[in-house]
């Protein structure tokens, strides 16, 4: 049975902030993204529980059951609170681990008999290179999750990770050049590993350029996600390039299937620095994600 025609509409007034749009005789409702989906009477009464409250999220009053804990992080509000608690710990860990790693690397570890003191750049170069690849993979994973499951938080996480990844890539390239000059005699050489690491930097920058050029947030998120996913093929190329091509760059020093070929104190220093970089990346990305969420929420209000 079809709907009747011109029936007068139930008027829903809105608060001062909301945009007033309504649908017609076939019934519908108006509201802006910040309003609760409840009826109008409750709408005015319910206080906003959090700055990032969104009507489509589950209500926050009941505690989260343990099995649902991780998936609940997909909600911006829950994520924001969790990140606010967690970031200081990771920041502190990064500082401590970094201090310990640098101390071991620059003070405790012995001098390399071939390369002298300059080899100590390894403590920054190798963890930075690892992080540059790892962060790209994590960002690509979030991009895929955002595209497939349309979670609201995934594109935000991808956007938060990319600048940090770009910074690590730049550090890896810079320290690599500083190390290469005394060791190989040249600042730069166009072998497979260096070239693909440079490409990784351009991929990061391309992503940042693309998402900042698109005004519509949704389109920017998804277009950036597509770009990240298409570029992810570059990461295995970087990683395996020293094995596939004869390059000037040395082979992998740390492998999972053989004993490492360096002194244990050097290894300890490098691992500590790797953990420090990882903790730093987490702290910075989460903090950036919180900022991005606030930006988006503010832009969403008319």
């Amino acid at each position, binding site marked *: 049975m079809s*709907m*009747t025609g*011109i029936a007068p509409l139930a008027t829903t007034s809105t608060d001062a902030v909301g945009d007033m749009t309504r649908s*017609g005789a076939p019934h519908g409702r108006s*509201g802006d993204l910040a309003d609760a989906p409840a009826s109008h009477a409750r709408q005015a009464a319910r206080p906003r529980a959090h700055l990032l409250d969104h009507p489509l999220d589950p209500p926050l009053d009941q505690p989260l059951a343990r099995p649902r804990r991780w998936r609940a992080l997909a909600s911006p509000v829950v994520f924001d609170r969790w990140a606010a608690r967690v970031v200081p710990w990771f920041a502190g860990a990064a500082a401590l681990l970094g201090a310990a790693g640098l101390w071991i690397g620059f003070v405790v570890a012995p001098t390399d008999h071939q390369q002298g003191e300059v080899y100590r750049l390894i403590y920054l170069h190798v963890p930075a290179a690892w992080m540059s690849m790892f962060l790209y993979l994590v960002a690509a994973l979030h991009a895929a999750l955002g595209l497939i499951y*349309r979670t609201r938080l995934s594109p935000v996480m991808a956007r938060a990770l990319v600048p940090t990844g770009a910074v690590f890539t730049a550090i890896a390239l810079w320290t690599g050049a500083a190390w290469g000059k005394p060791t190989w005699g040249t600042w730069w050489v166009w072998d497979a590993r260096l070239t693909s690491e440079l490409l990784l930097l351009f991929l990061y920058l391309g992503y940042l350029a693309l998402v900042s050029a698109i005004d519509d947030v949704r389109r920017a998120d998804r277009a950036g996600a597509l770009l990240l996913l298409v570029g992810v093929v570059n990461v295995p190329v970087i990683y395996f390039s020293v094995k596939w091509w004869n390059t000037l760059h040395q082979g992998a020093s740390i492998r999972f299937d053989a004993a490492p070929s360096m002194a244990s104190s050097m290894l300890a220093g490098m691992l500590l620095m790797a953990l420090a970089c990882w903790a730093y990346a987490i702290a910075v990305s989460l903090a950036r994600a919180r900022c991005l969420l606030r930006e988006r929420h503010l832009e*969403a209000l008319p």
Partner: protein
Amino acid sequence: MAHRERGDLDGRAATDAPDAPDAPRRALRVERLGCARGGRWLFRDLSFELHAGQALALRGPNGSGKSSLLRQLAGLLPREHGVVEGAAPADLAYLAHQNGLSLDLSARENLALATRIGGRDLSPAALEAALEEVGLRQAAATPARRLSQGQRRRLALARVRASARPLWLLDEPTAALDGDGEQVFARLLTAHLEAGGLAVVATHQALALPLPRCIALTLGPASSRPDPGIAPAPAASPMEFAP
């Protein structure tokens, strides 16, 4: 691949029996559809149902979401909130603000290629008939670039007509049309509805058509709505549906 029928304008293939069995009763059902653009809801929880032979007239001021609703029904905008049934891509013909014509091709070429892209292969006679119906027979060989805006709109209407799809989604179909063009449109729409088709038409003006059944739907801010006690369209227009 789409099933191609080479035949006449109304979609009857040459091999069909003269009186084909009744087409299935089509319906468009929309349930709690919502559209958010740029962080604002344009409309929410919109529900309606449209049956064969009915037209839905979308009214509302600029920016009220008429075009967005049509694009959601067409599938160009994502339908993230709500359910739409009966608007499969193969069932609809969409006329946007733009005409969808390649300016470098002639009117005839545009029509032929557009219908072929949509999966129908029209015979030359059917093409000529389609152009004749909208009054473009003289201009059939003119590049679309040299047609006037009204002529381009007529060509776009011819494309919609020739697609032989049951659901028409039309966004301001009479824009740039002269009085004669509006009559052409009225004829096309009436014929379509009488043949059992459905139509959702976004329009600023009242369509003066002697239609038996039509629904009006108004989108837009509360402040600009007319007093609900007064009929929102002139009483002379029989397009409005009285319960």
